[in-house]
């Protein structure tokens, strides 16, 4: 019987012959890597440019918004949403609890540290603070607590006199006032009267 008669033997011989063939692919691999590299660098460049452009647009938007007076109704609506998310629903955010850190944040939005230190509400203490954006403008968000209840005070530099404004949004009572070139917004779950009282206390402190 011929040695190639059997399929298994035929396959084995063929496999052995072809697999023993010297295969030199280092030059080819080098060529492929060279062809891939510029495309990879190109994609990286496009991604970096897009990220930079997005950042630029964000800053431009915030910069543009600061040139126009704040709309108290819009600010209150944003503040209510923020309070609901971060205080009522307790979504995780990075807060600062030490006074020095909160003062430093206040300076970033053009709010004097004295402003919130003069803001005293009996039974409540300043619990924490952070920066947030309302209506395209950077605000200092302060949270005051009496152990069981909490309310939010938002502060930002605002030279345009906007007067007093209050409204209810999603069950949150908001009140906004401009005093001494600073916009103060109160958000509380208690009542509209409480929001009104608190915002006037804040206005006196500014």
């Amino acid at each position: 019987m011929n040695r190639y008669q059997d399929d298994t033997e035929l396959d084995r011989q063929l496999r052995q012959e072809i697999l023993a063939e010297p295969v030199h692919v280092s030059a080819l691999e080098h060529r492929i890597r060279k062809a891939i590299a510029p495309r990879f660098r190109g994609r990286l460049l496009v991604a970096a440019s897009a990220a930079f452009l997005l950042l630029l647009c964000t800053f431009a938007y915030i910069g543009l918004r600061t040139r126009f007076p704040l709309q108290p109704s819009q600010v209150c609506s944003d503040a209510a949403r923020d309070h609901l998310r971060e205080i009522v629903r307790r979504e995780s955010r990075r807060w600062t609890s030490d006074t020095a850190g909160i003062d430093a944040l206040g300076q970033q939005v053009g709010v004097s540290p004295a402003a919130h230190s003069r803001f005293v509400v009996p039974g409540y203490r300043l619990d924490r603070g952070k920066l947030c954006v309302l209506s395209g403008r950077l605000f200092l968000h302060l949270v005051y607590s009496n152990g069981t209840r909490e309310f939010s005070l938002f502060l930002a530099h605002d030279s345009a006199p906007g007067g007093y404004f209050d409204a209810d949004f999603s069950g949150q009572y908001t009140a906004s006032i401009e005093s001494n070139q600073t916009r103060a917004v109160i958000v509380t779950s208690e009542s509209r009267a409480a929001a009104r009282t608190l915002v006037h206390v804040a206005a006196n402190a500014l």
Partner: protein
Amino acid sequence: MPHTRSLFRVARRIASDRATAEDLVQQTLLLAWRSFHQFRAGTNARAWLFRILFNEFRALARKPAAAMLPLMTELEPELYAQDTHGAIEMAQAFARLTLEHRTVLLLGVVEGFTCQEMAEILAIPIGTVMSRLSRARQALRGELMGAPKFKCSTEGAV
């Protein structure tokens, strides 16, 4: 770079010359890199690469200029693996097979793909793969035994 050797080994035996085989493998790996998002995790990456290789090969064969290129008909000296009579005999017999017979033997016997995987790589029914593999073995055996009834032309579809 994984699988380059396997791809090149197959490309070298289906393309007309070394340069075309290198272009095929390069194009395959570039395409795979570019369309990696289409690869389904958990499936056979090697089979996916070979499917791209054969798609590229078919596309190349459809080009008018490529139609004039002869497919590998003569065994080039570099493809002699071992300088033994049996090895040369086998290599020469394999080189004389049709393209479609070479293809199924390379994929099934040398690269170890299953009939199902070969059917997906070559985009043909599994029954066709099985009968083609059987005929390819017969043809190779015929070439080795010097039987002229299995002498085939070098043309054919993959």
